[in-house]
């Protein structure tokens, strides 16, 4: 049904200019899809963070959580495919809208005052690109183990993939942690605008709620930031340490 709506976006128009409008997806509908896919991604980020925070419960908890996930391949792959689809649509539309927006103002102002806009709202595309770069690196790092193979093949005492040690050891590297922290700041920036923007795009915010929702969204972004960033920081500061027995490859 969604695709049917999408295909119905361009109504007949009055102006001859209209005939030239390229794809059959209006800017408004493109935005709706950004919001829908963005919400999905946002949900993932929350769930993923909650999962990762189990690291504070110790090696056993985290590793058994990881194991449980892997033991449900249908769920796992559905989620992975869904995630990839959402991410691609979100990214694709971001490029499309960004191109439209750049072309809409070919000549910049000599003096420009951004009035009441937030930094986050003005930099959505850039922060998004950083997130994209991060995700690629992140997959190479933890999921595929290509950037740092030494930590990827660890197994714990119960014979499970030792995710806990992978993370803690991975974050011993200051540069890696630094990169994560910076990326998480950009993610927070993206989310600080995105989380309340969704509601405006889907048409559910109004003058009574708008400012409050913006604050809630910003608070939410900070929670995500703190939750995620705490892991590399804890690892570096030694609050999280590799299990005493050491991990075995």
């Amino acid at each position, binding site marked *: 049904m969604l695709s049917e709506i999408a295909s119905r976006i361009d109504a007949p128009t009055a102006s001859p200019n209209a005939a030239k409008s390229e794809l059959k997806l209006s800017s408004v509908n493109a935005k709706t899809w950004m919001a829908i896919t963005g919400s999905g991604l946002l949900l993932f980020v929350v769930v993923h963070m909650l999962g990762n925070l189990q690291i504070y419960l110790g090696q056993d908890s985290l590793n058994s959580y990881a194991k449980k996930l892997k033991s449900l391949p249908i769920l796992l792959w559905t989620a992975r495919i869904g995630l990839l689809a959402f991410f691609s649509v979100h990214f694709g539309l971001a490029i499309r809208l960004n191109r439209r927006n750049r072309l809409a103002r070919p000549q910049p102002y000599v003096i420009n005052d951004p009035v009441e*806009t937030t930094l986050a709202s003005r930099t959505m595309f850039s922060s998004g690109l950083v997130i994209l770069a991060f995700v690629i690196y992140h997959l190479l790092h933890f999921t595929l183990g290509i950037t740092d193979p030494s930590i990827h093949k660890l197994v714990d005492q119960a014979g499970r993939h030792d995710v806990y040690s992978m993370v803690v050891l991975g974050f011993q590297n200051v540069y890696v942690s630094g990169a994560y922290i910076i990326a998480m700041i950009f993610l927070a920036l993206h989310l600080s605008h995105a989380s309340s923007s969704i509601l405006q795009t889907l048409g559910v915010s109004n003058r009574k709620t708008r400012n409050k929702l913006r604050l809630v969204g910003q608070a939410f972004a900070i929670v995500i930031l703190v939750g995620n960033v705490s892991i590399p920081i804890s690892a570096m500061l030694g609050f999280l340490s590799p299990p005493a027995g050491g991990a075995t490859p």
Partner: protein
Amino acid sequence: MDLKVHVWRQKSGNDQGGMITYPARNLTSDMSILELLDRINEELITQGGDPIAFDHDCREGICGSCSMVINGIPHGPEKASTTCQTFLRSFRPGADLYLEPFRAAAFPVVKDLMVDRSALDRIIQAGGFVSVNTGAAPEGNAVAVAKMTAEDAMDAASCIGCGACVAACKNASAMLFTAAKVSHLALLPQGNVERGERVLRMVAQMDAEKFGSCSNQGACSAVCPKEISLDWIAKLNREALRSQFQRSVTQAEGTVNQI
């Protein structure tokens, strides 16, 4: 007071433009920005120069003609004010004043500070009306309209079509303008019949005119001389969803009925 006025000069849409500085002396704080330009122009004309072209007419903040970016802000620093209603008392004596045209691909420069905003007219032509011929109207009080609804419609309808929202928006989006008109007519029972079609047509025209998309930044409403609310953008989004959803439902029903 004295001011250093830097003005964007551009002979025509096909020429390159640039900032030119005009020192202005012995001004009074009761002068409007446009009266300042009048003064500069009188001097230019007597010296055989080319006066600075800018749109203006009513000079009381209602016609929407005047349009320039003053020190980086469309219509200048005062809230809820047009250029013609911006007075020099808003600036410090000796200050620099930067005057630029509204910039957007959809608003090509005609000359200097004057731009072509007919794209906004074409958005209205695409559907910003109620299709009622002269003489076909029912008695005015035949349909009651709740006071609050009429007030809301009036809020939306008070847009003066100046285009400052486009000028302020980083994406040069005309969403606030379009949303104000869509909402005004969608709120009233008289606009209800064409409500669904209207929003889709107007959005399509907005896109065809090469305006950017809205990413909910809010600069538009902040500079809008009539303080048109961002609520109407949310409403436009809602109207667009509603319209398409209803269409799919009707079509689905149509298919069912055929079977």
